[in-house]
């Protein structure tokens, strides 16, 4: 290193190097302490559910819901999954599981496809009146589901889809549309507009740009939408039961039946096991793709 003329070293005193980082600094204790306490609070219900679902009824009746099981039994899980009765059907949740899968997959796909196309059209192809429709959609986000129950029954009847799986898919698509469209629109708006222009100059049209340019760039937001929809649709009870028939009843109908049909005493352990079993799919999705979820939201979902 030529030419760097240093002053005589008269100054070399006092601290040097990195700040001594106390692993247990007050600040760290506060932060981690708070976080751990909060996390314990958030985990408490899950803990109660798991613990209870592993106890036998006598043990539950003795009290303390927070106490760990003295004798672990998987009986309640077996019962919830395969034996719990609803009316005459004593197959537990297993009966509804595949229905839930059959409902969730097409509903999630359809609602995401439609909402993403909407968001894309709103963000990049702003036609006259687009804002109006969007405002109505946002308004729709606030309409209580119950209000729309009958109008939609009539609608589905008129288009001949009442009672079919596709009718239910349409209903899920409709009610998922407001929030998903908002997310997709915000995301697509945050993508550089020049890309869209470049593609138009390159001769791609509406669908070409959507499929070839936009979709490949939008993995994060698709993950967000997927997670939101899977959760929402999997957990839905009302639509599943109102717009289909027993052959399609989702798992939540069984859950409702198990939880609400009290046979003598409430079998809390079975209820909890059933609850956990029903929540398992969305829970797994959260635990697996939570990271992508956060990234997706950060990637533009919140840029209004």
């Amino acid at each position, binding site marked *: 290193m030529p030419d760097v003329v240093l002053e005589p070293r008269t100054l070399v005193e006092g601290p040097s190097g990195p700040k001594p980082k106390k692993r247990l600094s007050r600040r760290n204790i506060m932060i981690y302490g708070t976080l751990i306490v909060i996390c314990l609070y958030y985990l408490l219900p899950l803990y109660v559910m798991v613990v209870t679902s592993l106890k036998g009824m006598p043990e539950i009746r003795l009290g303390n819901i927070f106490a760990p099981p003295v004798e672990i039994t998987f009986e309640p899980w077996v019962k919830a999954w395969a034996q719990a*009765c*609803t*009316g*005459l*059907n004593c197959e537990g949740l297993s009966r509804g599981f595949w229905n839930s899968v059959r409902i969730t997959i097409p509903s999630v796909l359809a609602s995401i496809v439609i909402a993403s196309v909407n968001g894309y059209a709103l963000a990049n192809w702003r036609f006259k009146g687009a804002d109006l429709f969007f405002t109505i959609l946002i308004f729709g986000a606030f309409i209580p589901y119950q209000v729309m*129950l*009958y109008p939609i*029954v*009539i609608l*589905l*009847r008129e288009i001949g889809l*009442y*009672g079919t799986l596709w009718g239910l898919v349409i209903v899920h698509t409709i009610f998922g549309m407001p929030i998903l469209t908002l997310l997709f629109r915000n995301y697509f708006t945050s993508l550089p507009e020049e890309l869209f222009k470049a593609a138009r100059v390159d001769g791609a049209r509406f669908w070409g740009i959507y499929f070839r340019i936009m979709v490949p760039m939008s993995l994060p937001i698709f993950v967000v939408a997927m997670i939101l929809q899977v959760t929402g649709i999997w957990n839905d009870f009302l639509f599943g*039961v*109102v*717009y289909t*028939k*027993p052959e399609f009843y989702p798992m939540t*109908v069984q859950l*409702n*039946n*198990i*939880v*609400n*049909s*009290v*046979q*003598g*005493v*409430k079998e809390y352990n079975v209820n909890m096991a059933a609850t956990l079993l029903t929540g398992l799919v969305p829970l797994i999705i959260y635990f697996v793709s939570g990271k992508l979820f956060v990234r997706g939201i950060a990637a533009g979902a919140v840029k209004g």
Partner: protein
Amino acid sequence: ATELEVTHWWTSGGEAAAVAELAKAFDATGNTWVDGAIAGSGGTARPIIVSRIIGGDPMGAFQFNHGRQAEELIEAGLLRDMTDVAEAEGWKDIVNPPSLLDGCTVDGRIYCAPVNIHSWQWLWLSNKAFEDAGVAVPTNWDEYVAASDALREAGKLPLALGGQPWQAAGLFNVLTVALAGPDVLVKIYGDGDTEMAAGPEMERVFQAAADARDMSQGSNIQDWNQATNMVITDTAGGQVMGDWAQGEFAVAGEVAGEDYSCLPGLGVNALIDTAGDAFYFPVVDDPDITAAQDVLAATLLSPETQVAFNLKKGSLPVRGDVDLTAANDCMNKGLEILKAGNTLPSTTQLNTEDTNNQLNDLFVEFFNDPSMTPEDAQARYVDIVKSKD
């Protein structure tokens, strides 16, 4: 064999066992009962049933409380006219009391098949609880009220009452019948007699309701059968609930008269109403299903089915000509009253669901808010009666 989907909300232990009897009988005819149980209550199940019918994809049959609930569906021509089956089976002659069939009749045509009689007017008492409290098992409402302090002291809840609105309203209506008499009830609900509603008889009922409110303070439960369970486990002195509670006692293995006592009409007016469940049959295109519907209707009222079903359900059969030797103490009490003709129409027959719903709201509020005076409650009661149609 035709598959017939039947929707109902009988999912508690006793109820489910009873439904199984229906299904067994129906399956024995060579058809298949497809069970479409929806747990919860009529509130959960009804919109589902109605949606299915409006949506043009109805189930084969469904359960309603007979009375005015299905009126509009019938008027809209969505439900089948079962008069032919009724005539072929001679329901007119066998259904007892005959008023039951009136609930199914619109413009002279019969639209439903009643399956049982459920009466509300029962007080269930835990013998052991009173024993623990050191008082005799009461034989009427007043004794019961008098015993409440002793029960409290013994750490028992005097009166178990679930939090669901219909239970509160039911309790009140039972008190009305017992304390003011059936005529009052029929006048008020049937004729919308507001003077009667505001009158001194009802004042007394409201006072009694306030007593009941005091007695029920501290029931942290929602479902009716949890309340029943408190009586079964002797943690509560008693419960006012319809005869379906009987099914719970039965499932728990309790013996009437020994473990528990029952007082129809609260031991004051030994009367029972004739509410009940009935099956309706939506109009469908498929002739196979129509045929199966006819079979089901007939099966429901067959003597064997009636016996098997009602024993499990704890309700009374709709025909007087069946032999219920297996019936227990309480059931026999009911049968006797029925035989004696001491019946009155049920609130589901007298009121629209709308009125019942308003009554539910009023009484659930009353029973849960000790600051609401009986006078205030009565004033609102009069308003509801005034606006009923």
